[in-house]
């Protein structure tokens, strides 16, 4: 009787991330359990079916693993690629919802046109996937919010998930556009999506490409990278570059970045699947890190940042890892949390790390972090025994920090630049009212105000409650 997750991959970006994720998941489970039996931890992500497509129970040998996923794209290219690749066996045709012509980088096209067209179909497919689960924990959506399908149709699906399954958690790993994004309409698309994420998601892990590129750069170029320099010795640098040089040619450019996101997803769910001294479930993440329901955007950072290919580097000292995690170089979204207020911090540690080590490091670093006054001990931590692939231990930090409002501000500014002159608005008016633009702007402004209030909050002296006699 496991606790299952259903993945919803929407759009080109969402599906590419998904592929790296499934690749990683299979490797992880293969490493963790040597037996060939279908066990509880596998069943979080996969079903087991025999050649006649009948469900097999836990404890039986693995025959055909099928991913618990919904694959959505309004363009053919990516889905066809997926089904043709070696990982294609994980998916059945009926899990894929596809169309031919795409959403033209238009949020409204994705949300309204395809949304209306495919609503029933998606709900039906969802229902079938949910029925195959014993006790569904959450939906995990991967998408980008700058385009048309991932952002528009993705937002629509998020709403459907809330309507149909309100008590199941909705987590999203959303790729936010960077400043130099090449899609002209991305400011509109992303703000509309942001509004939907604020309304319907339980927890959002924003990611942006420039932060990911920064991280990949650090891993790739040992001479420049701060971290790698300290550990690499003469021989290994040479080996590393060669290894990497060859791999680099074979790997597609976004693969490494998507791998990082795959690792993020793996870390978040590891405590559900593997044993640990201090387990942290997904519902504990939302419960502890989201003090007010609207403010559910968590900044994620991971340490150590090894190349996923090269594990010959010396293992970093544990304490260094704790220090690194708060450095902006390790974040998956650009921002300066140390200059703003932390509302809550979650630390998920993997590997053979002692409870007291975590505690000791938290005590040390507490004073360097600006925590909001009513949550000075705002740390939630968990320890999972199973280390990630290729590393002895690792750490994921999920921080609820007011610096996210800066990201929102930039997005709003880019939106305003276009909207002031009503550029491209007619594309959207084909599907929706213009008032939606203003409504969205308003809502995001309100959200930013809430973050700003918390940022400026000063400690107040409250009267203690009188004893009851």
């Amino acid at each position, binding site marked *: *009787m*496991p*606790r299952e997750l259903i993945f919803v991959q929407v759009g080109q970006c969402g599906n590419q991330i998904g592929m790296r994720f499934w690749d990683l998941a299979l490797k992880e489970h293969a490493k963790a359990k040597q037996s060939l039996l279908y066990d509880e931890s596998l069943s979080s992500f996969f079903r087991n079916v025999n050649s006649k497509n009948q469900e097999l129970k836990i404890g039986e040998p693995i025959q055909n693993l099928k991913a618990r996923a919904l694959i959505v794209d309004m363009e053919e290219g990516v889905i066809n690629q997926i089904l043709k690749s070696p990982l294609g066996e994980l998916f059945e045709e009926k899990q894929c919802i596809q169309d031919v012509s795409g959403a033209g980088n238009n949020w409204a096209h994705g949300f309204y046109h395809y949304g209306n067209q495919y609503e029933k179909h998606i709900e039906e497919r969802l229902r079938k996937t949910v029925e195959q689960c*014993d*006790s569904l*924990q959450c939906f995990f959506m991967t998408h980008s919010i700058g385009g048309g399908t991932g952002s528009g149709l993705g937002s629509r699906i998020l709403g459907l998930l809330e309507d149909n399954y309100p008590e199941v958690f909705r987590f999203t790993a959303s790729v936010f556009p960077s400043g130099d994004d090449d899609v002209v309409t991305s400011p509109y698309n992303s703000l509309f999506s942001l509004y939907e994420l604020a309304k319907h998601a339980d927890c959002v892990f924003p990611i942006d490409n420039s932060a990911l590129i920064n991280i990949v750069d650090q891993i790739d170029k040992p001479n420049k990278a701060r971290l790698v320099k300290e550990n690499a010795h003469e021989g290994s640098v040479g080996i590393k570059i060669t290894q990497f040089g060859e791999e680099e040619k074979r790997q597609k450019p976004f693969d490494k970045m998507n791998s990082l996101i795959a690792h993020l997803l793996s870390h978040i769910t590891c405590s559900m699947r593997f*044993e*640990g*001294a*201090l*387990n942290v*479930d997904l*519902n*504990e993440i*939302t*419960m*502890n*890190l*989201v*003090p*007010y*329901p609207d403010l559910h955007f968590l900044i994620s950072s991971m340490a150590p940042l090894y190349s996923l290919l090269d594990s010959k580097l010396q293992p970093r000292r544990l304490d260094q890892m704790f220090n690194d995690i708060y450095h902006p170089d390790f974040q998956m979204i650009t921002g300066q949390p140390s200059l703003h207020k932390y509302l*809550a911090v979650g630390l998920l540690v993997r590997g053979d790390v*002692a*409870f*007291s*080590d975590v*505690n000791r490091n*938290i*005590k040390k670093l*507490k004073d360097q972090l600006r925590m909001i*006054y*009513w*949550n*000075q*001990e*705002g*740390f*939630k*931590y968990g*320890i999972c025994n199973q280390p990630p692939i290729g590393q002895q231990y690792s750490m994921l930090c999920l921080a609820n920090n007011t610096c996210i409002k800066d990201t929102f501000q930039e997005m709003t500014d880019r939106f305003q630049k276009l909207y002031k002159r009503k550029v491209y608005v007619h594309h959207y008016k084909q599907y929706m009212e213009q008032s939606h633009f203003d409504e969205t702007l308003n809502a995001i402004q309100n959200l930013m105000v809430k973050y700003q209030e918390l940022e400026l*909050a000063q400690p*107040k002296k*409250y009267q*203690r*409650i*009188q*004893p*009851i*006699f």
Partner: protein
Amino acid sequence: MSIGFIQLGQCGNQIGHSLFDFMLQETQMSSPGAQALLNEIFFFERKNKLIAKSLLIDMEPKVVDRCLKADYYDKTFSLTKQEGSGNNWAYGFNNHGPANKNAILQIMDTLLEECGYLECLFLISSLAGGTGSGLGSYILELMSDRYPEIEFFNICVMPHLTGEVILQSLNTILTIGSIYQHSEGIILLQNDEAQALCNNLLNLKSPSLNDINQVMSTNLASFFWPCLTNQVYSTFHNNLQYVQELLNITNNQYKLLQLNQIPQLPQQSKAFQNDTWSALEKRIQQMVMTGTKEYNINWHKKGQQPFKQLMLARGIDVKKHQFNWNTVQDEHQFNKNEKSITVLHNSSNIIESLNQISDRSNQMIQERAYIYQYEKFGVKISDFQESMGIVEGIINDYEQLIQ
């Protein structure tokens, strides 16, 4: 005498497991008489196996599954679900409680049937999480109502004050507010203290959660271990009678108890222990009176006498020493210690930690942070205020006694 346990949530189950492991280990080093007594108090026979008188309850399966691998636990007396409580007291109390009420009563009835009778039951849980604290509070209320002939006690673990779970202060306040009226007595253990003991006395620079659990469970075991007095094994009933006295101060109930045990030594150092009984006695008395730990005893302060205390001294030549405090003496060398003393006391040391926790929850409640999570499951601001009021009352009562 018959004592049972209910292991609640991750912490409760880990500690209970550790406790039983230790007690069985300790019986290897005792006389057959002690073994028989121990088996009678804490275990019962089922299908030719010795089974612990314990219920294992958790809303997620992993920890209980691990416990069930031990010989002395039986799946019949366990209850697990899949989803956990998300560190939310309200979810544990209002959701898991009623949903699992019948299942819980059923395994309790089965336990009572098979083991004969229970005089008292100790609920073990942490204060910071959702299952142990929330569901635990529900179960205490349910059972103390249903089984009035059994005395219910709580063993509660306080989390690190620097933070382990963000909602810990809120969960702690709600738990204490709820259990104080139904519980006979609450033994409070602290993660901070146990970890400091590991660091400073047991030579463990990076104690794991397992190490910390072991420290707590050996301390608990030192209290539960039956004492041999006057060449005849006294029933544990005598110790329990002392516990009742500990709780009654000035004709009112003061229910918070703390446990201290010395010496804390790594195994390899035990052979070299050469404290005298007076030295040990002075140390632990000063520890209890000043609320300091064995590695940093404050000898300069005079300290505050505990309101009530029970001292258990075990080891070589214990009968030859005259103790100042009311002491139960036993020649058994507990945990391979030549001499050891355990003190269970009712004193005001704990008030400082309670004050801190109360402050923090007060701030969160006033800022309405996280409150929506609790309101979703039926715990409103007024409930928080009521629990805060009860905790303030407890703090006030203890502070009055100091004067």
